[in-house]
């Protein structure tokens, strides 16, 4: 059989493959912004969908103006206070949600009676759309950061709680029996077997819970606040300043990615004991 001619051409070398993925990913992003620019900025294309040429820009913003806004925020330093508030809320929601999920999850998983008793309520609480609690939290905790943290905590708590619960139940009976025969008392079983097993499940859901803490903070701010990136978006929306809304979304996305990266780094450090696919060292 003959090789297709195209596979030997220059395309074979530059087409997306291991090694040049990053280049292609960046190209895709540039392509996306170019498309946005061409479609939205008045006067580049004749109006196709909207009767008025500037309407597209009104609804979808203009990438250059969005970037200008982001630049302005960081250059003038206006955004730092807001960003700081949002990240602080995220952090508090994550820590409080994780700790309470861990403690209550462990306690319930190790108490069959308590867990049987609470089972329907936990299921109900979990299936309830908890974002709806945000207005109540605003009433209870005011418009300051406490209500945002509370919302984030309710989101994070259940993810961690269910994972801890699962982690305790998934402990291998053999490992458990072995530890007991080696002489572990109930307290030592908790510390040496249950908690490490539960932690592996908690870490596996770390991306999820950090993401939800962030969601809680932003949604909380969006529903009523005087500080934070969610507040910036809310304010811009009030004046139909769509470019600022998009700028806020862009900043949030970038920071969500940074948080995710941090989680990946932490995970690598803490989860060395877990097998990873194809773990070999290249020389």
């Amino acid at each position, binding site marked *: 059989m003959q090789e297709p001619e195209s596979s030997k051409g220059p395309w074979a070398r530059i087409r997306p493959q291991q090694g040049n993925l990053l280049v292609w990913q960046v190209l895709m992003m540039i392509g996306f912004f170019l498309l946005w620019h061409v479609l939205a900025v008045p006067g580049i294309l004749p109006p196709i969908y909207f009767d008025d040429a500037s309407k597209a820009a009104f609804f979808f913003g203009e990438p250059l103006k969005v970037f200008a806004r982001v630049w302005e925020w960081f250059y003038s330093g206006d955004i730092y206070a807001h960003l700081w508030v949002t990240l602080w809320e995220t952090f508090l929601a994550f820590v409080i949600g994780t700790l309470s999920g861990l403690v209550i999850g462990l306690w319930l998983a190790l108490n069959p009676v308590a867990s049987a008793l609470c089972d329907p309520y936990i299921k109900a609480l979990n299936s309830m759309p908890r974002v709806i609690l945000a207005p109540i939290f605003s009433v209870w905790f005011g418009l300051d950061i406490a209500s945002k943290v509370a919302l984030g905590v309710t989101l994070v708590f259940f993810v961690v709680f269910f994972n801890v619960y699962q982690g305790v139940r998934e402990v291998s009976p053999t490992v458990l*029996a072995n530890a007991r025969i080696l002489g572990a008392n109930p307290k030592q079983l908790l510390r040496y077997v249950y908690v*490490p097993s539960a932690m592996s499940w908690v870490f596996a859901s770390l991306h999820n819970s950090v993401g939800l803490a962030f969601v809680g903070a932003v949604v909380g701010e969006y529903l009523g606040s005087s500080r934070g990136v969610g507040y910036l978006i809310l304010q811009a929306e009030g004046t139909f300043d769509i470019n600022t809304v998009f700028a806020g979304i862009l900043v949030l996305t970038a920071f969500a990615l940074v948080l995710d990266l941090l989680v990946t780094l932490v995970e690598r450090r803490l989860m060395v*004991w877990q097998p990873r696919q194809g773990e070999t060292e290249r020389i």
Partner: protein
Amino acid sequence: MALQGAPALALENITVTFAARDSNDTRYTALKDATLTVAPGEFVSVVGPTGCGKSTLLNVAVGLLEPSSGSVKVFGEPLVGLNQKAGYLFQTEALMPWRTGLDNVTAGLEFRGVSREEAVRRAEDWLARVGLAGHGHRYPHQLSGGMRRRVALAQTLILDPQIILMDEPFSALDIQTRQLMENELLELWSADRKSVLFITHDLEEAISLSDRVVVLSAGPGTHPIGEFSIDLPRPRDVAEIRLTPRFVELHTNIWHAMKDEVLKGYARTRIQ
């Protein structure tokens, strides 16, 4: 006070009936009137077809499973709770995957309140004895099956149990690794002659290691159907001893006693 001359482990008329979880009438009697003793310093192997109740017997001996009837005595005293004098090597993986090999070996000492430095010192010594010096920093998933078995062996033996219970410890290993480890086990055992109850489905392994081989019937209602003294000289090399005439003779005798049971067990599993 332990009775003088009492067996290290005595299982008397043990019956174990498992109740099915879904309905009460589908019970399964794994062991029926099984009696077995291990003298101090004796190496006893138990052979029986797969699924006959060997693990069940060992779980009773270590106190993980309470028999439906019958008694367990450890150095003459009735067993209450877990058997404190016994070490147990499980058939399946029992290492804590979140602890390194070294930390798995230190675990038992740490549970007993031995200081960390002391525990590490002794664990490193034991890792060296099972041929794993310098591998202690690795996690179980980074070790081969044979290495994990060695870690498990060190984890059990570091506590210096007077009775060692082993449930098909080498059955998952390839034949070379297996014979190496069998020889190592004999060497460790001959150093301070503990009582060993060794479970296997492999008759050759049983003969080459033991002082006495106990043959179990096929299930349900498993019980010992024959006992054979193994008068092969020690020290033994498990690979070489298989070639001696006496070994072949013993093997033939025991195999004849077992054959019917093996076929019975095989027929039963085929029907299921």
